[in-house]
């Protein structure tokens, strides 16, 4: 396997950054996320970031088009989309699996008789993902239980393995090979005979086998009342989730005639999310909202796309203000008795 000495990490990042805009994990205990790399920035690779790389492909806010009205005429101008490639460095398997979920949502609709998402397609197509395998689990990680291999992900363009003193480097795609060559040409890569490291087994496990099937019979179960009681209906879980992808479209009016139409994140935890024009809300209470969140992740998404919409990153577990822990929910669902 090709290896990159960790001492040369900064040189490697400099090379990447001169090739394309580069985003890396950075921050501290209080807050961390993927930020644009510039020389001197301290890259944080000891544990996964508080916020994943989702917003680089599916931004919190984006302009869809701008409009201007002149009397009876309306002029619509598309907002130009950046087409330059972007490197996302240090993506963990859980977050990459979440991107695969986003791909299903935004890019598989043509084959289902729909339309793929233009903005997402452009961003995703131009993203070069450098993944970093995990060797040990953080306190709230359970990706293995959700069918994710923490040590590597096949959808990475370039996969890094932590070998202690160095990173193992393996390219999976042409884009990845391109990056790997950049490093090679600068003499940063060496060829070593090493085995891929295997991760330690995770302390936190949950058995999600058969959960989708079980949930098909649990729409009216009293479990949702119980879980809903303590939920605050804040959006922490959905906004820190690397796989949640709900959005709303609003108008940002500059004045009576001009403005733009924007797309921004929304959350199924919020009342307005399902509020109808006439004021009716089909998910009026906490119970209905909590149920929707877990059913979407564990039942509807697997039914439609054949995989969970939870990749076991553990962020919602770590950050929920009231400890509404999805692994506990899965356990409770498995234990639940169903009438009839």
């Amino acid at each position, binding site marked *: 396997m090709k290896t990159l000495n960790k001492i040369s990490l900064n040189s490697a990042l400099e090379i990447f950054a001169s090739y394309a805009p580069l985003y890396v994990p950075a921050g501290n205990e209080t807050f961390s996320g993927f930020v644009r790399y510039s020389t001197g920035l301290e890259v944080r690779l000891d544990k996964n970031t508080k916020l994943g790389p989702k917003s680089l492909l599916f931004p919190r806010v984006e302009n869809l088009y701008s409009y201007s009205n002149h009397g009876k005429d309306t002029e619509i101008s598309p907002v130009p989309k950046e087409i330059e490639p972007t490197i996302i460095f240090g993506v963990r398997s859980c977050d990459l699996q979440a991107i695969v979920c986003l791909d299903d949502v935004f890019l598989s609709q043509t084959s289902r008789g729909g339309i793929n998402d233009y903005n997402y397609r452009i961003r995703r197509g131009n993203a070069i993902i450098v993944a970093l395998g995990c060797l040990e689990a953080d306190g709230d990680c359970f990706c293995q239980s959700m069918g994710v291999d923490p040590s590597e992900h096949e959808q990475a363009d370039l996969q890094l393995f932590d070998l202690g003193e160095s990173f193992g480097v393996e390219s999976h795609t042409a884009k990845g090979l391109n990056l790997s060559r950049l490093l090679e040409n600068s003499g940063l890569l060496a060829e070593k005979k090493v085995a891929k490291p295997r991760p330690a087994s995770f302390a936190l496990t949950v058995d999600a086998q058969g959960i989708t099937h079980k949930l098909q019979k649990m729409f009216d179960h009293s479990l949702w009342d119980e879980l809903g009681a303590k939920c605050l209906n804040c959006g922490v879980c959905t906004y820190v989730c690397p796989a949640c992808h709900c959005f709303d479209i*609003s108008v940002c009016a500059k004045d009576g005639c001009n403005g733009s139409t924007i797309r921004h994140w929304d959350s199924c935890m*919020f009342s307005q999310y399902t509020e109808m024009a006439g004021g009716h809300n089909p998910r009026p209470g906490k119970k209905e909202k909590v149920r929707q969140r877990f059913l979407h992740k564990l039942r509807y998404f697997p039914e439609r796309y054949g995989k969970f919409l939870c990749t076991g990153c553990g962020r919602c577990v770590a950050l929920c203000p009231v400890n509404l822990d999805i692994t506990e929910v899965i356990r409770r669902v498995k234990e639940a008795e169903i009438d009839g």
Partner: protein
Amino acid sequence: MNQPLIIEMRTIAQKLLAARTVGTIIGWEKGSRWYLTPPAFIHNEDQVDRLYFDRFAVNNLAKYLLDYRDSDEKVAVFVKGCDSRGIIRLIQDNQVKKENIIVIGLPCAGMYDRAKVEDPENPHDLPLLNKCLECRYPNPVYADRLVGEVSVSSESGRPTGTYSGFATAQSVGSRADRRFEAVDTLNNLPSGQKALLWQTYAERCLRCYACRNICPACNCAGCIFDSDRKQWTTKAALQSANSFFLVTRAMHVAERCVECGECERVCPAGIPVMSLNRLVSKEINRLCGAYDAGIELKSSFPLSHFNLAVKVGS
């Protein structure tokens, strides 16, 4: 935390449910980690053994009373000192009917800061949350029942009850006099640096509304941030809109913030939300005289009660 107190809690809960005095008990139970003691809702006598109380029972349960705002169901709720101030605020804001709730006061020896947990597998010595070091009301200021020999008291800085000595030894309230220090430090930054810092915070804000949704002072039936139909603001998490949210939230809880610190605890973006509340509270103290929210049921309010005699100074 001492077992007799928990037994006392379970006993009182069991009696209230058995006598059908209340239909629900809102307390805490052990969560999915040793360092988590989240809210619990007990409806049946056979469930009272779930009730638990330790130094991780940080959630202010007062907020949950809003879920009963439109019902006549009677509920009992366990409170620490800070939580009881939230109850007073909810009663003062006409959000909760006094006769529909039974408030059970607890002694509090301060809550641990779980953010300081280094090894998620093993317990170790943890520091107290800042809000506990800065606490001035360690006793319930309002309660219908009491456990753990605690007294209802709004006397500042003197914990009562079974482990009052322990609370003092743990430095609960030791920084009460210096509670404005953090906000002073932030406020004394050069203006350019200060602006930059808050821009960074505003950029980070996810608009998840955890700070709002956990706050007992945020008890409006509708919130302008839930609707962009009127175009006061946008739902989009733009930095400008986020600044507007952060400032509006702080101004809206002016005179009503009970300093439970929950807003800051739950913020996933690490924004020092309490420092905004403290800034407002410091100004109220400076302009209108000493005032703490949620201490007495019958009190006059420096901002929402108009008093000709008070001249707001410069």
